[in-house]
């Protein structure tokens, strides 16, 4: 119950770090995707479960692309805070 707002920020930072560290090749081989399916998954309502997988992979890829550089800054700031203020 003793959740503070800082713990949310910390958890979010760790999760995004985890997503950024992923190795795409191993991930895709594990999922069994060919890796170059840029089909438009969102328009097809009758898709079975491929839609969810596609969305997840798209999300992971976009998070990695967007957050690559800002993540460096966030990590440096967090490390400085933790070192200075405990």
């Amino acid at each position, binding site marked *: *119950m003793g*959740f503070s707002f800082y*713990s*949310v920020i910390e958890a979010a930072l760790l999760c995004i770090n985890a997503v950024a560290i992923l190795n795409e090749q191993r991930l895709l081989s594990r999922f069994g995707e060919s890796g170059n399916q840029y089909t438009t998954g*969102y328009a097809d*309502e009758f898709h079975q479960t491929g*839609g*969810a997988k596609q969305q*997840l992979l798209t999300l992971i890829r976009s998070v990695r692309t967007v957050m690559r550089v800002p993540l460096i800054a966030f990590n440096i700031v967090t490390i400085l805070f933790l070192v200075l203020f405990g």
Partner: protein
Amino acid sequence: MSSRGPMRLGKNYPHPPSQQQQPQQQQQQPPSQFYQPTAPYPAAANNYAGDFGMPQPQIPPSYGGDFNVPQPPPAPSHNAFFSPQTAFYAPPSQQQMPSNQAMPGVEYLSNNPLFNVGLNVVEQGMKDFTGKTVNMLPNEMKKSISSIKYYFAVDQAYVFKKLCLLLFPFRPRNWSLGYSADEPVPPRVDTNAPDYYIPLMSAITYVLVAGLVLGTQDRFTPEQLGMHASSVLVWNIIEICVLCFTFYIFNVQSKLRTLDLIAYCGYKYVGMIAALSSYLLTHSLFVYRCSLLYVSLSLSYFLVKCLRLQILPDTGGSQPYGSNGNKRRIYLLLLVVILQPFFIWYLTRHLIVD
């Protein structure tokens, strides 16, 4: 320059020196929302119907906290047809009282004219200050402010009806949302519309009631209040993130906006307060558990009825009912509905001692 239907956010705020609206409505990138609207609507050239935050120059702000330069209070507009802006502010009957537009519901203070003068001076000063600060904000935040203002357009009748509905939703009634000119109608007019006032107030009340319960058990310290407040915020954030993530992964395009979802997830605090108050009054575990059960049931029923119309597709008969898109939506609806009683139980159980 296409504006989309239910998700159309407000236009630019006019700068206070220039009283006329900006003729060029540049299309801003919408803030990152997870839900796309169902169909884009053609842009109207000077259509301000969807702009809840920007009043027509004739209508004086009567709900307090408007960001525009104060206009001289003119005659109230008598629109022949209903438009969201007039409903957004107080109904015309209230606008006829000239000295009474400082805050809603404070009419009894207007008997003293000097007090009113002072109030008006303070209000003008505040409006100048907030007008300056708000116009320094980027356009994105202005849009967000205007779209959030929609959720605070409530009045006492709405709050009362909504609270009764949350605690007893079992009467047969019409649950559909009202729309006007393809925009959802503000909560002041439509009882079914979601709002932020009740969730916000009930969350704050929950923190206070939790402090009260702790006080009766001699466990109260002032840090507990802050801890409860921050955990309310954190659990809200977690819940909204999980739900938005699930919506995105399952690729469900629905009319439900993120802001609406935040409102619907905030209604559980009313139930929590009810359960905690029943425990506070009787100090009996049995009563607490019964009220917990009843509150969970009524909240689930309420949410199913409200969200069913928004998440599940309109049954146009084109798809068979058990197709995959529908199944996902039903599961998603069930997820939303089941999370609420779980949170009610989880957030109150540490306050209950045998």
